[in-house]
């Protein structure tokens, strides 16, 4: 009754050349991959990763029109944005040209095409630079700043935000200056420069408060809460988060409320208040449900929930949560998150001193290197992989993986994580 067995994703991906044109097909293949039904309860079931899932060529063929439709739809809106830019050009409406080009860039970002988005923004910037009104340029620079963060180009990102801030201040554009300060804070956070980030967020907060810009105030309070927690000033973190929560609970967007509660959960976890942390994460999930679907936000909450269970030794619950997150990540093609999920699964197996857990780290590295390259993710995976090997007493391999992590963090200019890896390497040598 049953047809031929499915093809494993690891084999299917090995047959697909690394061509940009095939990216939508790759995404489709990953999203329809299912566990081989015989495997779920088999002894390899607990080690199931994306690579061990299966795809039926028939199903891929059947779903291809959906993929074509999405591609066509994306191209249509992109072309439309370009035509709108042309129409604005015809009307000599240069700010309109900039807005249309930025819109196209944002559309590219929405589907994870950051390099292409940057190209749109660069064209928009050339137009904006010739304008007398500098506000469009402020906006383009901000968009460029964020896309550079996504691409891991922190120095370029900081330059764009700095320029955006200088222009906004010269134009008395308070909202632009607030957003640029927030962006500079975000870049500093991405590089682990907590002090710098705090200064930028505080500056942004002062500007937002002066302008009575409530959404920005709430967001910056949350960011300052995050920073305070990272710097172990837990009382200050609690206070910032309480304020952000009060602000958003009254009338804020549900996704912002979910983010605040997600952070509250992390703070409670750091304080050892596991029940409170779990309740905060559950409530965050409930708020996320009220917002437009955002797989990344949902995954962030679920990963935190799983990590909480892992730290509390509730390994069954941690695994169940990670499997739910895996499903969301595969369905939403959130590959970087998927790599983080497998890293946590590897840590979970490490906690059980299960050597076969190495398969999760190998899969995470594969995803971070080949499927959706991300140096930051790869560095984090190597870091956790090194600790896993060290826990199993495999010191040579542990050292090699930690050195690789250090090298990758170095290439990113990431200070805090690099220092943590360095400390672990010193401990290994001691």
């Amino acid at each position: 009754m049953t047809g031929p067995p499915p093809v494993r994703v690891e084999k299917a991906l090995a047959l697909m050349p690394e061509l940009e044109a095939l990216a939508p097909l790759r995404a489709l293949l990953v999203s329809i991959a299912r566990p081989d039904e015989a495997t779920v309860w088999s002894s390899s079931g607990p080690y199931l990763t994306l690579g061990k899932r299966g795809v039926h060529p028939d199903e891929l063929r059947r779903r291809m029109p959906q993929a074509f439709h999405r591609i066509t739809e994306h191209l249509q809106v992109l072309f439309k944005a370009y035509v709108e830019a042309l129409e604005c050009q015809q009307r000599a409406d240069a700010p309109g040209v900039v807005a249309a080009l930025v819109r196209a860039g944002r559309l590219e970002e929405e589907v994870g095409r950051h390099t292409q988005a940057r190209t749109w923004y660069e064209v928009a910037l050339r137009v904006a630079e010739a304008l007398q009104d500098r506000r469009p340029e402020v906006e383009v620079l901000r968009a460029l700043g964020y896309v550079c963060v996504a691409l891991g180009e922190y120095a370029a990102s900081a330059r764009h935000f700095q320029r955006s801030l200088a222009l906004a201040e010269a134009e008395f554009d308070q909202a632009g200056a607030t957003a640029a300060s927030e962006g500079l804070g975000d870049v500093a956070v991405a590089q682990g420069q907590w002090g710098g980030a705090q200064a930028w967020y505080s500056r942004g907060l002062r500007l937002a408060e002066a302008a009575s810009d409530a959404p920005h105030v709430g967001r910056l309070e949350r960011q300052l809460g995050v920073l305070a927690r990272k710097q172990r000033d837990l009382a200050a973190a609690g206070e910032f988060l309480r304020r952000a929560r009060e602000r958003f609970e009254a009338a804020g967007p549900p996704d912002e409320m979910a983010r605040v509660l997600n952070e509250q959960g992390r703070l409670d976890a750091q304080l050892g208040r596991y029940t409170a942390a779990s309740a905060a994460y559950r409530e965050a999930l409930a708020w996320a449900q009220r917002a437009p679907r955002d797989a990344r936000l949902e995954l962030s909450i679920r990963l935190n929930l799983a990590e909480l269970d892992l730290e509390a030794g509730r390994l069954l619950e941690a695994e169940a949560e990670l499997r739910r997150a895996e499903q969301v990540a595969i369905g939403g093609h959130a590959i970087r998150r998927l790599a983080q999920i497998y890293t946590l699964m590897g840590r979970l197996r490490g906690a059980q001193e299960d050597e076969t857990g190495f398969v999760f780290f190998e899969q995470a590295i594969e995803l971070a290197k080949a499927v959706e390259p991300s140096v930051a993710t790869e560095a984090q995976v190597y870091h956790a992989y090194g600790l896993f090997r060290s826990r199993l007493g495999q010191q040579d391999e542990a050292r090699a993986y930690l050195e690789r992590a250090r090298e990758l963090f170095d290439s990113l200019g990431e200070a805090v994580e690099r220092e943590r890896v360095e400390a672990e390497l010193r401990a290994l040598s001691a």
Partner: protein
Amino acid sequence: MIPPVRMEPSVPSAVPSREALALLRILVVAGEGGSAGALLQNLRQWADDGRLEIDTAPDLPRAVRQLSGQRWDVVLAVLGEHPDDDLSWWVDTLRGATGSPRFIAVAQAPSMGLVLRAEKSGVLDVLALPLRREELVRALERVRSVVSETAVPLPLVEPHAVGPYALVGQSAAMLDVYKLLARVAGSSATVLVQGESGTGKEVVARAIHMNGPHASGAFVAVNCAAIPENLLESELFGHEKGAFTGAVTRKIGRFEQAASGTLFLDEIADMSLALQAKILRAVQEREIERVGGSETIPVDVRLIAATNRDLKEAIKQGRFREDLYYRLAVVTIRLPTLVERGDDLVLLTAYYVRLFAQRYGKKIQAISDRALGLLRAHAWVGNVRELRNVIERAVIVATDETLRAEHLPDELRGEEATLVDRPQGGLLTLAEAEARHIARVLAHTNGQIGAAAEILGIHRNTLTRKMKEYGL
């Protein structure tokens, strides 16, 4: 003669009498676009004679907050404009709430798909708006029936310890396994253990090792299906430093690690033909070479292989080497499924309850008749491994001395006859009956379409089409 496993009900001392109608605390929550106004008014009118205490939460986030603060028996959720989307979020978000309250969903004209999906998610009931008193009372009766469960003491079990595991069971099918195991263990013969997933192949392999001539050596297990194909060779045979990218140090493979002991190759059917050839050489020549190395290393290991696949069928399809099969299957041990083991289910349940109760610091002495009934009725696609998981989770959530139905996972509780019991306007149409049967089979197979298609005797594509048609 093996005495049958007897499970006599004890005096249900801790269980309140049926006469006393327990007070139920109900939290009413409205989803986005859903309104609980009129419903609430009715509920308050019915509350006194129905022994109900009712409170409300304006939305799901506030409900989560209220649920984390105190214990509720029932969450009555008024699903909003998108009930299908809402349902999974609600179930997911309310999971882990204090005291595991039962979940009743209320929706405008619930579709069959919604009802079946709810059943699969362990939702106690789906009621239509406007809510009728009799329907609510019937649903709440089922919540109250929990307190009428009868505690049954756990039987004594004498497990045969096998390292960190144990062999438990007295069924005729398992006795045959024990006899064969005893005969083969004393020799150094290569053994092939066959059986469905979760039947205990590794435990049997360990038992052979521990009772055989290689017992003083190591028992090294490799799960061939878990390890990425490109890494399996180096995992088995080891590698020299620099043999390939990522070979940062010399690695001793599992064959060498198992020297003078036993190498257990689990899920051997998942190995590529190229690697099968290398295994064959290792079995025949009793020597290996590390990846990237030129030295031939003699290996003295007992080999035990296991699979849940039909290797003869795999040979016919050209997926498994016939010569390797005959090398491995010098002796073959076939393990029975959990269903074939009859009352062993009770012994295994008792064994696992005690094991996990000790691990998690619980004092569980009994299991309720209803919980046991649910365990007996389940299809156990994952056999003993699935049972072990179910019991572990149940023990974690159990709070008193009796393991009850409410401690079992949603999927098992969802299998209790709910929809069939509920006459919805008389007889079912053929399509309704078919949809319900498909949903039940899918629940039994944990949503595995291929397994469900096999049980139903239809092609998986036909099943997929029908699932789509019925909104499953």
